[in-house]
């Protein structure tokens, strides 16, 4: 595709519900990142995939958050038992390869609102 795409663009859910956020990286990009951006703040790292495996999940805030990338392309961020504090924009980024300082291309984000 032309760029990183994320769906849905907006998601409103109720406290306690389960949500899934999808990321389609740029075709051929092996590295994929999830970040979370709270209002008025910079993005914060959540998890990094190299291919199908989560190589660094040190940014996940707790075990309610989980992400997968089963075929090394599309990734899904899953949040269980959502809390109001989970409300934020969830950004996905991809880069062409794992090594070196390859530019991270960001998608437009999914705005999650937990009521």
């Amino acid at each position, binding site marked *: 595709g032309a760029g990183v795409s994320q769906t849905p663009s907006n998601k409103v859910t109720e406290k306690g519900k389960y949500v899934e956020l999808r990321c389609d990286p740029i075709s051929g990009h092996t590295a994929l990142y999830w970040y979370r951006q709270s209002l008025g*703040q910079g993005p914060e790292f959540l998890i990094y995939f190299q291919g199908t495996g989560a190589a660094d999940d040190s940014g996940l805030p707790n075990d309610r958050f989980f992400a997968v990338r089963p075929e090394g392309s599309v990734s899904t961020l899953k949040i269980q038992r959502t809390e109001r504090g989970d409300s934020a924009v969830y950004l996905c980024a991809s880069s062409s390869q794992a090594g070196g*300082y390859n530019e991270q291309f960001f998608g*437009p984000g999914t705005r999650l609102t937990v009521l």
Partner: protein
Amino acid sequence: QQQVKQSPQSLIVQKGGISIINCAYENTAFDYFPWYQQFPGKGPALLIAIRPDVSEKKEGRFTISFNKSAKQFSLHIMDSQPGDSATYFCAASNEGDSSYKLIFGSGTRLLVRP
């Protein structure tokens, strides 16, 4: 722990003026410093980046100045235009971190008045 501190939080500049945004970092292992530009409703986009082996990098109207001893770097936007109005984020990364994850500053909202 805020590893990258950014200032000012907001900035208003007249068209044609110079916009200056500053960042300071704590982790001396950081060795890659990009600046990202973000428009409302969009994801951040890479503007310009620098490594600590140089003190300055210029691309068009955008310049990064880097001071390794002070652990500071700044973005200068020359001849600022209304179309530059956006939020700017500095970031840092560490080659020793195999994920190359970016650590972002808190952002600067720039408004360029016509």
